[in-house]
């Protein structure tokens, strides 16, 4: 078991490297620079910015395009690059490699560098501010999802093909079908603006977090309910349940001791991928309810081409997801001895 966990932990690093490399390449090959959107700055200032973010590497320029070092205006640089395309490309690849190494080194040390957009703030500050909020929201949503989903799924399984089952499953299908960006505004409309039960936005007290948590969790509650029902019905068909009954065990023990564990395996395995979906969902829910979390920072960063921030958000999410999946695998191993002794 310990070896299994260690191996999985080691397995996380190459995956992170791949994600890092992929987003880095995406960022490098994207047309347009990060500073294009701003008002034009003097070439010297721009050059200094680019040097600071390692978008220019003096060594590479000296090696492949020495003429570039005297050039000051963007038009001159464009003309020069057009004149010697191969050297220009080599210079770009060289710079890219330097930037890659530099950023990777910083990431390993947990330093995500400065924001492209808000030059006086570091990406780490944004993450420190946003991540706890998003995690709270996610935790709340998972709690809702498991609380509602498990109960509904078990009830549906016990009353298979009778009205509680049909009711729960139609509700679950509805939960899967109502997009959270429809549900959220409707909840605000009804409960905040209509009934005045909950405040419509912000992130301060428990009453603020209730509606966003419910909005984010509803889809997963629906999936958990379906998986619980399916898992339980699958398990009670197994031979070992017949054995448990043939042993004269009371029905309570048959369900709780013999069926529940196997029946919940699909739910537990689902929690891994669900984490990814939760992060995605939080993008919209944070926007609807004006919650200052990572999801909102990410969309703003993407739209502002604040690529250092966007990339850091992707990486931090990837770390969380991989860890969450690892935890899920360990829990699966605890629940299912066949996995443990593979």
């Amino acid at each position, binding site marked *: 078991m310990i070896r299994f966990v260690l191996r999985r932990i080691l397995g996380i690093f190459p995956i992170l490297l791949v994600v890092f490399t992929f987003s880095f390449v995406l960022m490098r090959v994207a047309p347009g620079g990060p500073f294009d959107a701003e008002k034009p700055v003097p070439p010297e200032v721009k050059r200094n910015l680019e040097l600071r973010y390692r978008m220019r590497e003096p060594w590479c320029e000296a090696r492949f395009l020495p003429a570039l070092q005297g050039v000051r205006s963007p038009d001159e640089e464009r003309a020069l690059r057009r004149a010697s395309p191969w050297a220009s490309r080599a210079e770009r690849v060289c710079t890219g490699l330097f930037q890659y190494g530099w950023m990777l080194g910083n990431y390993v040390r947990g330093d995500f560098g400065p924001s492209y957009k808000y030059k006086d703030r570091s990406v780490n500050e944004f993450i420190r501010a946003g991540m706890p909020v998003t995690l709270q929201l996610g935790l709340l949503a998972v709690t809702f999802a498991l609380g509602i989903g498990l109960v509904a799924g078990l009830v549906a399984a016990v009353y298979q093909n009778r009205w509680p089952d049909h009711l729960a499953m139609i509700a679950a299908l509805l939960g899967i079908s109502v997009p959270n960006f429809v549900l959220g505004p409707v909840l605000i409309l009804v409960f905040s603006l209509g009934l005045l039960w909950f405040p419509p936005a912000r992130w301060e007290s428990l009453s603020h977090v209730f509606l966003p948590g419910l909005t984010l969790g509803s889809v997963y509650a629906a999936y958990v309910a379906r998986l619980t029902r399916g898992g339980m019905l699958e398990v009670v068909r*197994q*031979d*070992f349940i*017949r*054995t*448990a*009954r*043939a*042993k*004269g*065990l*009371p029905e309570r*023990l048959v369900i709780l*001791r*013999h069926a529940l*564990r*196997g029946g919940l395996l699909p739910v537990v395995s689902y929690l891994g991928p669900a984490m990814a979906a939760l992060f995605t969902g939080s993008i919209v829910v944070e926007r609807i309810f004006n919650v200052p979390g990572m999801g909102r920072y990410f969309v703003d960063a993407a739209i502002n081409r604040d690529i250092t921030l966007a990339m850091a958000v992707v990486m931090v999410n990837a770390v969380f997801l991989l860890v969450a999946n690892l935890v899920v695998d360990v829990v699966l191993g605890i*629940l*299912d*001895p*066949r996995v443990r*002794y593979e």
Partner: protein
Amino acid sequence: MSELLLQVRNLHVHYPVDGGVSRAVDGVSLDVRRGETLAVVGESGSGKSQTMYGVLGLVPRPPGRVFGDGAYFEGEDLLRASERRLRGIRGNRIAMIFQDPMTALNPFLTVERQLTEVLEVHKGLRRKEARNLAIEMLAKVGIPDPERRIDQYPHQFSGGMRQRVMIAMALLCRPSLLVADEPTTALDVTIQAQILELLRATRREMDGSIILITHDLGVVAGNADRIAVMYAGRVVEKGPSREIFESPLHPYTRGLLASVPRLDAEQKAPLVPIPGQPPDPSRLPSGCPFRPRCPAATARCAQEYPPTRSAGPEREVACWVA
């Protein structure tokens, strides 16, 4: 010796299907005497297992339906017993072992948990005491190093060992009736022999009765005192083991015997499979359900189901022509 332990009278187990009823068990009567082994023989779907599920209250209801004139076990009618009462009998005085020990044991629980819970529920023992008894029982059914192996999971046992665990589990409460449902079908031939030997030894020691459910007449030979042959939810022939092997009356029994290789006598007799397939229990043919496959069928067989009649001191058969 001839005291009746279990007496099943006209048992029916029905399941609703699209536009009709599937008669899995269609009026079965059986007797099991104390200390004997009764073999219930028939093809898949002939209702052998369903008969025992019906008696023990293991038929899922709904959708299933179980009714009949009675199933008396030690004088008590199990068909009319409460679920609570049945639970007290199952695993305690009547125990079952199943075909596939791979799937019949819970993969998520240790062998210890699965054995001790039987004693906890039926005998009110505490776990520690139950554990000691369970270890003893594992040793008795031939599991080496039971103190260590009891804490393992089923998938860490081989097929034969798993079936031994099943048997140990069934014997924990010293039941007076052991129902072995195809106990060797999923096992290798050499392991089969060991398990059958274990069952024989068990019966000698516990002085109880065994119902051996099987489709394999090879398993029956030398292991059963009496045989009941089932076809399409009914018992078509009943009698002492030796007599059935030597002079089968029902054409179906004859067909079964002809399709099994035998070491004794008639070495040169060819193996003859029975043509066709067993009928769908929701669409039984008119008259005798075996008629479409029967080499001796007459016009009468298509009209009326043959009543069960006596054919000797201990023999019964349900056939117009036998």
